[in-house]
């Protein structure tokens, strides 16, 4: 493997308080040199990074890669490549596959498929309950042994407080977070968007903010009871931010994530029955968006995750209430955050890198999240000024279901490096970790 010299980029790495121009030398899959001007060995691939930001690789702790079960809408390979194209060096795959990823064999399958993909790293998340049925606890120990980094019944709320309590207690042995999709199911039943004036006008059954918040406070209280680590997925409401703040002030082990769409869009996007604005939790109000922006800035919300959820276009091309929840996000996340949070002054690039790279690595105990010498060379190089028009038909992901299709956004991945190999470079996704020069036909 040829060494790589990233030349003249702005190094942004909050894990070591770094923010300034300098070179990065990568060899043998690790960071060999950092900062200042580096000459590098004779045989080296030099990548000109002038005007670009060089940061620890982004990690998405929440995506749906659909394999096994729905390989027609995404596979681990296409999902990993889409991640790389979006600047992610690693993603965590949710277990709501078919069959459910609730045992060591299923976890092992994902690990192997990810190795074959030779692109962004893919870490499996195991199910909390067998079959995600909310009854019997799945085998956390064996799943962790096979490579699972967390457990979740995502997509399905853990309705039973007793099961959630047991999961939080049992997960402590393995030092993994228990991720909850916070939704009080009897309150949200039949709902397809946020409950409010827009749902009332459109005649769609709404999901109140309280359906999320009731479970947020339940989970925080159970984390206090058990001492377990609860990680709250895709927070969408102002009330949730306030409850998490309450929990953190008391030292309870609660962490939380927010999705780019909940930081940038409101329920108004649903008008016209736009099924690409349908996801769960739903888009909320401008007040919620503002509170989430403040929360992600002050650290109440620890990290940004995509909830990448590809669907076949046929499934979205139907009556709103019948359309499935979810949108793709891997290839737009960076640009949505730059456009809606950095350009507007809510976040600095340093904050962005912390919430998308360092935070995920820290909270999930994953490799990466730092450009320190000797660290695994998972590096994202992105152009903070690149203006581009989103064209969903050109996504690397098989999914086309994006509410950002046609929008002009700012910020784009230029080069994604995993374990010292370029897996994506400026519009040309490399197929394998070694095959830098391959272009698409």
């Amino acid at each position: 493997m040829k060494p790589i010299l990233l030349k003249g980029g702005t190094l942004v790495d909050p894990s070591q308080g770094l923010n300034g121009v300098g070179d990065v030398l990568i060899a043998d899959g690790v960071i060999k040199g950092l900062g200042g001007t580096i000459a590098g060995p004779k045989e080296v691939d030099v990548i000109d990074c002038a005007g670009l930001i060089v940061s620890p690789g982004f990690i998405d702790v929440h995506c749906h890669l659909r394999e096994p079960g729905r390989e027609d809408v995404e596979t681990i390979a296409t999902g990993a490549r889409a991640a790389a194209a979006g600047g992610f060096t690693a993603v965590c795959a949710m277990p709501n596959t078919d069959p459910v990823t609730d045992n060591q064999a299923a976890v092992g399958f994902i690990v192997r498929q990810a190795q074959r993909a030779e692109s962004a790293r893919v870490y499996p998340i195991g199910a909390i309950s067998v079959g995600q049925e909310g009854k019997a606890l799945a085998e956390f120990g064996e799943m962790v042994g096979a490579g699972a980094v967390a457990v979740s019944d995502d997509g399905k709320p853990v309705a039973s407080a007793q099961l959630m309590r047991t999961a939080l207690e049992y997960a402590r042995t393995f030092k993994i977070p228990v991720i909850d999709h916070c939704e009080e199911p009897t309150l949200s039943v039949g709902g397809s968007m946020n409950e409010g004036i827009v749902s009332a006008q459109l005649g769609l059954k709404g999901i109140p903010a309280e359906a999320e918040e009731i479970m947020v406070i339940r989970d925080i209280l159970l984390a206090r009871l058990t001492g377990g680590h609860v990680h709250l997925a895709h927070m969408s409401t102002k009330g949730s931010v306030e409850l998490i703040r309450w929990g953190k002030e008391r030292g309870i082990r609660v962490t939380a994530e927010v999705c780019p769409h909940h930081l940038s869009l409101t329920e108004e996007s649903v008008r016209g029955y736009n099924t690409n604005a349908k996801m769960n939790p739903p888009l909320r109000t401008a007040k919620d968006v503002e509170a989430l922006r403040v929360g992600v800035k002050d650290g109440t919300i620890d990290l940004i995750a995509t909830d990448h959820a590809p669907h076949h276009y046929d499934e979205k091309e139907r009556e709103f209430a019948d359309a499935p929840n979810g949108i793709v996000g891997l290839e737009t996340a960076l640009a949505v955050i730059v456009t809606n949070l950095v350009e507007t002054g809510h976040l600095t690039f340093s904050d962005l890198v912390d919430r998308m790279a360092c935070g995920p690595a820290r909270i999930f105990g994953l490799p990466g999240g730092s450009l320190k010498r000797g660290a695994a060379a998972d590096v994202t190089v992105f152009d903070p000024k690149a203006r581009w028009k989103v064209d969903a038909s050109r996504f690397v992901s098989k999914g086309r279901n994006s509410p950002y299709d046609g929008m002009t956004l700012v910020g784009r991945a230029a080069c994604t490096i995993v374990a010292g190999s370029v897996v994506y470079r400026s519009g040309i996704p490399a197929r394998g970790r070694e095959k830098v020069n391959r272009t698409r036909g």
Partner: protein
Amino acid sequence: MTGTLGKDLLGLESLTGDQIRLILDTAEPFKEISERAIKKVPALRGSTIVNLFFENSTRTRISFEFAEKRLSADTVNVSASGSSVSKGETLVDTARNLEAMRIDMVVIRHSASGAAQFLAERIQSNVINAGDGTHEHPTQGLLDILTLRDRFGDLKGRRICICGDILHSRVARSNIWGLNKLGAEVAVCGPRSLLPNAIDEFGVKIFDRVEEAIEWAEALNVLRLQFERMTAGYIPSAREYNRVFGITRERLDRAPGDILILHPGPMNRGVEIDSDVADGPHSVILAQVTNGVAVRMAVLYLLAGGKPELAEAAKGGSGRGREDRE
């Protein structure tokens, strides 16, 4: 080519007060056609219209069919029991197939909110919403408003209260939009469990007690109480609903002035409305049904490109209408 209403009639939210008045004014000359021995004019001769009913309906479908036939259109009724999904064909495929048959208009009734707009965005034919989920039922709203206008003249400042299950009612939404645009004062009355949580933002007054509504209103539009609301737990029982919210003779007797009673039908006698009210002197329920045909004729005529000022002539049998289109 589209007339003064645009290509489709999807709801009253998107119409202006002037457009609503135009439809009502156009309906006036059409009222008389239904009183004739030969109830037919050639305004839509040669036009093909599909009545696409994914949800059961007797009154609305028959009303549309009479309106179409009295304008000499060729009509086909398609009743799909349940949704298109349960039939195996998606709504978008249904739309494409209709389009391929070169039809002129589609009247659609569907259980999903937004279904009419979905169809309208995907086919070139005119689309008329005959009720989509809990969203809108614009021709019902228009016929209710026409009935009120027959009695009140100008609706500006008139006090109209819609009673019952506002949460699930497309009729309520169309009435609120339409009446507000014509300057009426609108109120709603019903159990809070059957009002949208965001009702405060609708620009309507809210009455918790039907007695207060009766004291305030000049007209009550009494909505049908769907039986499934009880099984879903929104209210305890039909009996209690009648006791607390039913429009009864005793309650109406305490009205300070004259009060008009409307009901979009079909009625649950003894639940939301008592028989002696429905059949009594305050009731204009059958006038609504008669007006329904005239309003739907007006909508069909205008969407087909008919000139409003020629509605009188069209009525006379000159056959102007679709032929006027460029």
